[in-house]
């Protein structure tokens, strides 16, 4: 057993920190915050710079233009970006491009991958439907083959970033007579195809997502990805290394650091209070627990292990800690803790504690509900009977 980081990971982290220092301007952060998840010009430039370094393809095989690196580099990358609150994330890179690499035809790889790498092609994911969330296999959006085309009818929900996307990555039912998981196929749908419409849904945390509707949308037969009726494998597929940065500790640690910094500057009397210090100590213990789970998970993945329970543990603990920390910060700050960013009075940490609190349900139900995750731990991790 050896718990130390090899020097190359720490050196890489220094390189990342220097890179981030260059890019982390108030204007970039502002664009990220007011436009949460969207892609303004500064964010685009930042992501292009990351792409140029190859970091968006950290663990991809070199034959596919990746850096072919150990997933612990990916871990370092995610953690460092998360600590500094940088808009590095891009589902098109982390989910869609690997899926195209894995399941797409040579033509599809040629058609989409260069555009993705150049930042010109952006996908929104069309999986969930109003009646098919956790039970995704219940999806009903239908694709019917008519001559040289597929005709799609149906509806998707939580189609985030559709308003900025060039394409949709759509799961549709192609054979209702097969068992539920087996009659699903994956399609690429241009966002501007006739019959596609988008309706915004605003979450109470200020984040936007969408409903999307498909009215006799016609796409070429070549837009089927992978095997007909083989879509479920693609939906479920996530390269192991994508799970490495699944539930970081660093963004949570940053909340802690910001809280302590705020108290030190604005409420030094509170920071001297033994009761408050005790609460902060408890939070520190929780953060160490999260680090333990995140590193354990990353290490297992990096060494080719498959322990789904570890990823689930990390996800559950991280999402609940996000709530606990933002909750603690708000409690310790009293009425100040409730102030919103543009609330008319100086909000602690720019209102980040209350906005994080509002956003905290998302990770508790998103990415696989915490109930599902606990079931995975019990059944796939502990071998309990189903």
């Amino acid at each position, binding site marked *: *057993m*050896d*718990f*130390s*980081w*090899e020097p190359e990971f720490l050196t890489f*982290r220094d390189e990342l920190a220097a890179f981030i220092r260059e890019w982390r301007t108030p204007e970039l952060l502002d664009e990220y915050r007011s436009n949460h998840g969207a892609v303004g010009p500064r964010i685009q430039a930042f992501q292009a710079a990351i792409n140029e370094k190859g970091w968006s393809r950290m663990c991809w095989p070199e034959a596919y233009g990746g850096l072919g690196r150990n997933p*612990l580099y990916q871990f*370092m990358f995610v*953690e460092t970006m998360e*600590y500094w609150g940088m808009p590095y994330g891009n589902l098109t890179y982390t989910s869609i491009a690997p899926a195209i690499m894995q399941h797409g035809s040579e033509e599809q790889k040629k058609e989409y991958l260069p555009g993705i790498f150049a930042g010109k092609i952006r996908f929104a994911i069309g999986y969930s439907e109003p009646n098919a969330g956790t039970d995704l296999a219940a999806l009903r959006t239908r694709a019917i083959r008519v001559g040289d085309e597929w005709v799609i009818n149906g509806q998707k929900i939580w189609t985030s970033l559709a308003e900025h996307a060039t394409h949709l990555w759509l799961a549709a039912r192609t054979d209702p007579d097969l068992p539920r998981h087996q009659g699903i196929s994956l399609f690429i749908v241009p966002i501007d195809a006739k019959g596609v419409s988008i309706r915004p849904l605003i979450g109470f945390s200020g984040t936007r997502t969408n409903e999307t509707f498909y009215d006799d949308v016609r796409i070429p037969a070549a837009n089927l990805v992978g095997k007909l009726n083989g879509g479920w494998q693609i939906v479920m597929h996530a390269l192991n290394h994508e799970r490495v940065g699944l539930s970081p*500790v*660093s963004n949570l*640690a940053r909340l802690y*650091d910001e809280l*302590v910094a705020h108290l*030190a500057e604005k409420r030094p009397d509170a*920071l001297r209070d*033994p009761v408050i*210090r*005790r609460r*902060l*100590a*408890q939070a*520190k*213990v929780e*953060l*160490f*627990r*999260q*680090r*333990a*789970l995140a*590193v*354990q998970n990353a*290490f*297992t993945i990096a*060494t080719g292990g498959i322990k789904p*329970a*570890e990823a*689930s*543990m990390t996800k*559950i*603990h991280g999402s609940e800690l996000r709530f606990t920390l933002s909750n603690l910060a708000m409690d310790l700050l009293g009425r100040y803790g409730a102030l919103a960013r543009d609330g008319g009075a100086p909000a602690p940490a720019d209102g980040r504690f209350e906005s994080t609190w509002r956003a905290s349900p998302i990770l508790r139900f998103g990415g696989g509900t915490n*109930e599902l*995750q*606990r*079931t995975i*731990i*019990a*059944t796939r*991790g*502990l*071998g*309990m*009977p*189903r």
Partner: protein
Amino acid sequence: MNLELTETQSQIRNTLRELIEKEVPFARVRELEASGRSDEILWRRLVEQGWLGTPFASELGGGDGGLVEAGLLVEEVMRRAAIVPVAEVLACALAVLRSAPGERANALARDVIAGEVRPVPALLEASDRFGDVEAVVTAEGRLTGEKLFVDYAEFATHHLVAAREANEIGLFLVARGAGVECEPLRAIGRTPQSRVRYQSAPAERLTRAQGLSELVQISRALAAVQIVSCMQRSLEMTVAYTSVREQFGQAIGSFQAVQHHAANMATWVTSARFLAYEALFDLEQGTASEEQVAIAKAAASEKAPEVLMLGHQLHGGQGFIEENDLYFFTLRGRDRCLAWGGHEECLELVSRTVERKQDWLRASA
């Protein structure tokens, strides 16, 4: 970085596990609990087969292991709730070696490995605080004072006592015998412990103040491992039981509520295990701070009571009776939560450094 056991470490774990399962029937553990005695049979076996040498250098007759290997030994012993002072004896010898290296420390280690000296720590006094040391050793080397919560005091051949001489704190080796009076204390853990009164007992200084600190750090990290071991056993037994126990026509382990409790238990065990062994590893490297070890102990001590309770909750009546083996781990585990700094005490330590700049991807600052 390698979070898996090396081949040698795996061998240590597997061989010792086999030995203890063979040598220690739970029936004997029950008898020893009732009589308040230690497991002399197991101890003899451990000495004979050289197990005590595991964390010591080969020049001393040891196995060239370190604190991580000590943790593995301690974990395996606790998996059987065995009543032997492996953690206590190893911690004493290792603390002396690390804080006061030299011929005397080497000799102590050799004696421990050979089974001739069995030292246990005697640190706490009435205040139950590690820093409070009133026990005094005279210029002639005579110790007078009282120590509480001395685990395995009567099975030990010597006590390693925290005391002052010429107002300088240190660890003093005191042989059981004249001037040493042990009075048994009974506690939830059902392992032997004593109040000990020293009256002009001959005492040999082995270390200065650093030895006390070293002994507390090592013992604290080993106690975290013991707690993890108890939680692990509770979880294993709970998964096994709920997988076979049927009610309403199905195994109760298939009910979601039961599964979710088990998932929570597993998450707490996994994170506590990582932090405990990381603390041992970093102590071995010399990079562990007092805060880090306190966090590892706090992480284990905080959740263990709940894990152990959930084990009983999910076992129902069957897990509650002493005929069955679940209770061993509940009692040992709860006791070890309080030994070497409980949750509250460790949080108090951590609260001293809440604003210290932390590298969040490592245990160090």
